[in-house]
């Protein structure tokens, strides 16, 4: 059986305004009880890839805490596990702080595992891809690199800043890898998920050192198109890109739609996360909750509509929460009214009883703030 190792690439993370002020996108809360990184980690775990390195770009504290010993993601603990790959040296040095330098700096992870294939996947592109199928398709193709892609019809609205590919009509190999500026509807979008044959990966890293220390994996792929055989694997399942603050808000709330959530939550494809040992959600006498996702430990005594309520959140009597995302441990005092709000962890609505953001610009309340 071919050995596959994985990298979760957090170097391509984007900023989500206040949400990523003190943490990487990867550990931003997702659907009340996950971190965004849980999806890609679960994909690796469910694809039976047991050796996974997380390429951390910056602000690692909350990620270290979330990952703990990595046991929650069900990786084989003797013959695998999660390694957090981080290099302080590059953290404050923008152009050098890229995925290739991080991989080279932590090259032992690649070398000691002696893989046949390497899968690199980002955290901010949400999907439930079976990487074993991706690797199989790659192995059968004989290409040096395979990029997972999806054909989209809304590249003029979503996927801005992501990459798209163009293919040679005969060989089906990638001839162009460009940034999507939103000037066309139909694009073959790169999901920034790559599979390399191990030898090709080693050569790729070596070349990168020669070409430029500022080049990322994506840049090197674009640079190598003429000399390397780079193919694609078309992924047909659910996929969304959290590439900005609005996208985060939209993607999260979209999960309230049953047709969307059932595409992601399958019994044979569990989404793993660490446990917090919180009791079940408590709905009190004055609770009125519909069209929402509520995490364990929350105590609700108000009205909640079309919202996501995180762990241990307290919604006081008569409070009203609409179209909002409340992170774990926050407190909404009795009588408060919130609409179009993203409220970060352990914050409290106490004095300002009426907080309204816009659907297009949800109001953000910082972690720990009492407003």
């Amino acid at each position: 059986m071919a050995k596959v190792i994985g990298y979760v690439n957090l170097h391509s993370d984007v900023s989500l305004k206040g949400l990523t002020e003190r943490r990487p996108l990867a550990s931003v809360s997702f659907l009340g009880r996950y971190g965004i990184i849980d999806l890609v980690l679960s994909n690796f775990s469910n694809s039976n890839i047991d050796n996974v390195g997380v390429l951390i770009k910056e602000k690692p504290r909350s990620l270290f805490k979330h990952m703990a010993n990595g046991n929650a993601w069900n990786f084989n603990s003797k013959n695998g596990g999660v390694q957090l790959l981080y290099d302080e040296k590059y953290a404050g040095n923008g152009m050098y702080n890229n995925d290739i330098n991080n991989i080279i700096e932590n090259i032992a992870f690649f070398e000691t595992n002696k893989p046949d294939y390497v899968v690199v996947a980002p955290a901010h592109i949400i999907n439930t891809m079976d990487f074993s199928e991706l690797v199989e398709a790659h192995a059968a193709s004989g290409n040096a690199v395979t990029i997972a892609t999806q054909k989209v019809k809304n590249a003029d609205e979503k996927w801005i800043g992501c990459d798209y590919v163009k293919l040679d009509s005969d060989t089906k190999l990638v001839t162009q890898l460009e940034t999507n500026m939103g000037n066309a509807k139909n694009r073959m979008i790169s999901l920034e998920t790559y599979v390399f044959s191990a030898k090709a990966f080693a050569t790729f890293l070596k070349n990168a050192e020669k070409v430029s220390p500022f080049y990322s994996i994506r840049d090197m792929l674009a640079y190598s198109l003429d000399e390397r055989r780079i193919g694609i694997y078309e992924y047909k399942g659910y996929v969304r890109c959290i590439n900005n603050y609005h996208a985060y808000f939209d993607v999260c709330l979209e999960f309230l739609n049953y047709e969307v959530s059932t595409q992601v939550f399958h019994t044979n494809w569990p989404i793993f996360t660490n446990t917090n040992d919180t009791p079940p959600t408590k709905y009190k006498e004055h609770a009125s909750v519909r069209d929402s996702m509520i995490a364990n430990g929350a105590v609700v005594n108000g009205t909640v509509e079309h919202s996501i309520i995180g762990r241990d959140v307290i919604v006081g009597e008569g409070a009203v929460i609409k179209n909002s995302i409340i992170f774990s441990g926050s407190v909404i005092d009795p009588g408060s009214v919130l609409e179009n709000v993203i409220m970060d962890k352990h914050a409290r609505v106490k004095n300002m009883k009426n907080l309204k953001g816009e659907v297009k610009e949800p109001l953000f309340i910082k972690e720990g703030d009492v407003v």
Partner: protein
Amino acid sequence: MGKELVAMILAGGRGSRLKELTAKVAKPAVHFGGKYRIIDFPLSNCANSGIDVVGVLTQYESVLLGEYVGAGTKWGLDGNNSLAAILPAREGADGANWYAGTADAIRQNIDFLDQYDPEYVLILSGDHIYKMDYAEMLAAHKEKNADLTVAVLNVSLKEASRFGIMNTNEDGSIYEFEEKPEKPKSTLASMGIYIFTYKELRKYLLADAKKADSKHDFGMNIIPDMLADNKRLYAYEFKGYWKDVGTVESLWQANMDLLDDKNTLDLYNTKKDWKIYGEDTLAKPQVLGVDAEISNSLVNQGCTVDGSVTGSVLSANVFVGKGAKVVDSVLLPGVLVEEGAEVYKAIVDENVTIKAGTKINEEQKDVALISNNSL
């Protein structure tokens, strides 16, 4: 050096008064409170009390319980020099030996205890709902220089006839033990929680094993034997929420108690010092649909509610369809209440489907137990 204290949880009983709920699992493994199994309470209490070696004695339907307890990881009992060990009745050179009674079960595991050479042994039942700091009880045991300390609960005089009652002197020393007395002299009921000084326990267990007429039971044999020898037995009064969930009715009531804001169990850990640990089921987030109505209820992750739920406890992966009504009920994991079905004052067993249009226990006189057998 030996451990100061090792805990032993008696988890071998069937709990036959729980009927179909214990058809395939031992009573300590019965689901409780939407997220827990009963044994999570004593195990979490051990972990929170700083106890790091816990033996779990199993007999009846022990496979699931053994799997659940595993190495104790769920309760943090898996550090260095720490473990939860499953101790099923076993076959030895002298043949197969079932546990003949509570004392016999401990006696058959003297080899396990000897390994740790503890000064004290804490004996617990696997079927009570409560939060208790055993470290405080141990401190009391040491302070009194006791041979045995029995945790007691002050019950009403009316209830006292249902329990083993400890008759005590003013200083808390026990002079008499009466099992379910018709005319109780005291209202201090034994909770089945004992701290023994191990060398005394060991002696009495070995002596008891030789007695042909003994039931090998702590209450019926060991305690009376020690009293007869004028050993130092003390009662330790526990104040707080404690519930023995031995019957369908009491299991239902204990679940309902969780909905009461005045309940002193503090499951929500408002004092931030005593979490109850257990299994975090791999399940999708809990979803309330556009037609959901919910109040006064506990709901675990993985549930989908699109109907009306009041006064109820929903375990993981329960589905309540549109127009369905769930009132004053406890739904165990995986229960499916189809559109328009109605359930009143019931415990519904794991993975049972309540078909569309059915009405369960409308008259709501007694608690109904709904299992796949009863439908």
